[in-house]
């Protein structure tokens, strides 16, 4: 498709910030309430109402900027972006145009072609607009609950050279936003939205050609499909001797087609000017430090540690450092000195299996890292077998007790510690003198016979390794 051409794409991601209240008023910031119930004079733009910045918004933005390695501006300003639309009650959106919150930064993406860094241009704060809904009877109604919900807009450099790279970037950004708790990343509910700029050029060209903008890309797949479709269209136009005009397109995900929204003449004139109702947002280094107190160790750093220090396999590295909850679960497990490799094996194996079987999120999983830790400790100290450990884990799904409590109450290690096993084996050797003699004559396969007897007596609860060690000692002890 792209023979002789390369794709140049950039993404603008709008992420709704997770905060208790909206950006400039005290209405709850939550999704899914009955229309127009989470509103007040401020977010409705009633005459005389004024915005007041919610500091939680700044803290969330600071966390994201830091996670991206962006440069936080200690002084930023809000500006008004003026345009008319029924879901924009003030007739302007409070945004940041002249002095954005942060500039620069980068995010690592991973595609079939390998890993690379994507550069971020800027990240700025703004408020969301309401939501227009077009009804079957042709009328349009507006839900203002979303008005004033805080957004951060993250603008990438035009660094993508394939639809897959853009998809990988959106995916990585979503993962990061969720990991640091800045955005829930729910694209169906619109808490994460994406626009793309696309142009193509002949391979070898250095200048950019005219680009088009695509709105309404509401999944990673639609980002990839829309960029591919638009690049194909542009190449077709060029190959037929045509030119591309700057325009905004709407992506219809179901039909898989792009339709032009409006032709841009030069650029839209939003008449940006400094928002006089809000003083400059000034931060000290200490303010920023305080805001970062809840920023967890980032996936990037956790991956490096899991790979380089713990020597975990690449699959485990990605599994355990991509989802915040799972990663924190793993961190808790290894926090008390447990072997990372063994802990990783349990999380990757048994825990994942149970989550899958029950279609659970980790937050639904009834077994805390502390309780799983108890099982691992019992197995590692040979009090119980790994198989019993797995049984206990399964039992814990409906049983609130700790591993110790279950083991003691159920006698799961009852008489099967090393001393008990030794006494048991001594008794068996006495009971079967003929078989013992055969072994001592050289019939080593009698080991199987004795192991079988022991397992029968202990109903399989004796640890096989310990049992075999003790058995061998006693078989060779000719006293």
């Amino acid at each position, binding site marked *: 498709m792209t023979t002789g051409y390369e794709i140049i794409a950039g993404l603008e991601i709008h992420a709704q910030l997770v905060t208790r209240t909206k950006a400039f008023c005290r209405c709850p910031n939550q999704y899914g309430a009955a229309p127009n119930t989470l509103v007040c*004079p401020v977010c*409705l*733009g*009633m*005459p*005389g*109402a*004024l*915005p*007041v*910045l919610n500091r939680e918004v700044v803290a969330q933005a600071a966390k994201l900027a830091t996670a991206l390695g962006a440069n936080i501006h200690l002084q930023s300003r809000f500006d*008004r972006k*003026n345009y*008319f639309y*029924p879901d924009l*009650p*003030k*007739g*302007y959106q409070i945004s940041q145009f002249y002095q954005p919150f942060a500039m620069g930064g980068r995010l690592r993406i991973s595609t079939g072609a390998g890993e690379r860094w994507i550069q971020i241009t800027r990240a700025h704060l703004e408020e969301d607009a309401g939501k227009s809904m077009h009804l079957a009877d042709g009328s349009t109604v507006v839900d203002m609950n979303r008005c004033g919900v805080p957004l951060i807009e993250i603008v990438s450099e035009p660094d993508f050279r394939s639809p897959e790279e853009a998809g990988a970037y959106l995916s990585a950004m979503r993962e990061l936003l969720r990991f640091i708790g800045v955005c829930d990343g729910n694209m169906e509910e619109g808490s994460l939205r994406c626009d793309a700029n696309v142009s193509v050029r002949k391979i070898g060209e250095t200048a950019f050609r005219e680009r088009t903008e695509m709105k309404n890309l509401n999944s990673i797949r639609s980002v990839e499909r829309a960029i591919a479709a638009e690049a194909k269209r542009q190449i077709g136009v060029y190959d037929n001797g045509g030119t591309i005009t700057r325009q905004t397109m709407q992506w219809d995900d179901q039909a898989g087609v792009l339709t032009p929204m409006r032709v841009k003449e*030069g*650029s839209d*004139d939003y*008449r*940006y*000017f400094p928002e*006089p*109702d*809000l*003083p400059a947002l000034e931060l000290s280094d200490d303010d920023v430090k305080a805001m970062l107190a809840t920023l967890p160790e980032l996936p990037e750093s956790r991956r490096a540690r899991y790979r380089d220090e713990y020597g975990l396999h690449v699959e485990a590295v990605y599994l355990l450092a991509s989802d915040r909850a799972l990663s924190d679960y793993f961190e808790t497990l290894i926090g008390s000195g447990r072997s990372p490799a063994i802990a990783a094996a349990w999380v990757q194996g048994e825990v994942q299996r149970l989550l899958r079987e029950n279609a659970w999120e980790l937050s639904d999983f009834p077994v805390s890292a502390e309780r799983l830790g108890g099982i691992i400790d019992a197995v590692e100290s040979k009090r119980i077998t790994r198989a019993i450990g797995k049984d206990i884990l399964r039992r814990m799904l409906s049983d609130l007790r700790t591993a110790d409590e279950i083991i003691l109450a159920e006698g799961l290690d009852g008489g099967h510690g090393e001393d008990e096993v030794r006494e048991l084996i001594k008794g068996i050797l006495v009971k079967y003198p003929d078989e013992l003699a055969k072994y001592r004559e050289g019939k080593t396969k009698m080991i199987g016979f004795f192991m079988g007897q022991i397992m029968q007596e202990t109903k399989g609860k004796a640890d096989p390794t310990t049992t075999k060690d003790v058995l061998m000692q006693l078989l060779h002890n000719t006293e």
Partner: protein
Amino acid sequence: MYPRIPSPEILRQTPRRIPDAVGRSLALARELESLGAFITLLDERALAHASSVAARLLAGEELPLAGYILAVKDNIAIKDVKLTCGSKILANHPATFTATAVERLEAAGAVVIGKTNLDEFAMGSSTENSALMRTVHPLDAERVPGGSSGGSAVAVAAGLCHASLGSETGGSVRQPASFCGVCGLKPTYGRISRYGLVAFGSSLDQISPFAHTCGDLHRITRVAGGYDERDATSSSIPVSTNTELELPARPLRIGLLRNFLEHEALDSAISTAVQAAIKALRESGQTLVDIDLPSVNYSIPVYYIVATAEASSNLARFDGVRYGFRHPDAADLASVYDMSRGAGFGVEVRRRIMMGTYVLSSGYYDAYYSTALKVRHVIAEEISAALQDVDVILAPTTPSTAFKIGEKIDDPMAMYLSDVFTVPANLAGVPAVSVPWGTDEKGLPIGLQFMGRHYAEEQLLSAGMLLERLRPQA
């Protein structure tokens, strides 16, 4: 002092008379309806509040503004009361909340009897731009009361109430105060919360009181002012702790703003009044020094760029979609906007929205808006620097006394120039007070103004009080 109703002091001493006095104010407002001061009278609400204030006083409660009967400009919100802004587009719009300043004044015992007329969205200098009614000068029905807070000025000047709230963006309180012969204070930007004041030029707007004396302005400002968590531009600098205003404790150092005192547009009667005031101030032991602030000569163009730019954005919300006037013939979204705004706004408001939209447009922003902001900064710096050396700056409030209705309404530039002396204080954010000083040959009041340092309202009003003492008693 208050010719038609008992003074606040008397009412505080005899709380039972408060409801009667409020009733009397309301009746007077109706008797003098031809003045056109009020758009809405709040009989029931005012009388209920008056009774409650009386009862609380009798129960021994301290209410610093008990006895004060107030009027409020109709661009300041009072919950469930029409908030018209003098515009057809909001003619039937009830406010959904109460402005912080009103809330504080009422909590302190003041009673609001009504909402006053104004130039539409506070845009004008004569109150002729109200789309709802005509307000006339209390001494001459053929003249304007000034504006945009004309109704609030007239309500006080005609003795219908003790004091009132107006709003200033470029002189909309001091100018009508001067025309009507009352005191008007434009506080420091940030002194009184703007929450509930319908925005015109947000970086300039300030709720501003009228009263008969600087002492009353002081009492009102310290109650209405102070930090408000609902206005991010309100200041946390505390208000004065002195309940009563006093004369300056020491002689003041007063700057005489030569380029205004000798301004070519200044009426000779006003010039004579200023000279008399200067003489009286000097003889009373104040130190007078000449100052010249060349950049303030650019105040009018800077003001009309900044204020209209902000207004074009602030008034975008009046679009016929959610509240206010929607044109009955509008058939689709574009016509809802075009027809509702076209018919809902008056000519001056439309003119300013167009100007503001123009100066913010891509390609013109740098030449107009951005340049105006820079010049505004220079003006502010120059005024602040002068106020390092002097306590207050003296200037006339207006170039002329009250002009005739219709005289300037078709000449916007002439109308804009009536704000030439008041606008600098708004651009610089400093407080300024206009105090009456005599009359011209027609008997029309003249006002002189002092500008003061940021948040130094008390010192500024003390200077004003000094003028009140020194002026020849009629």
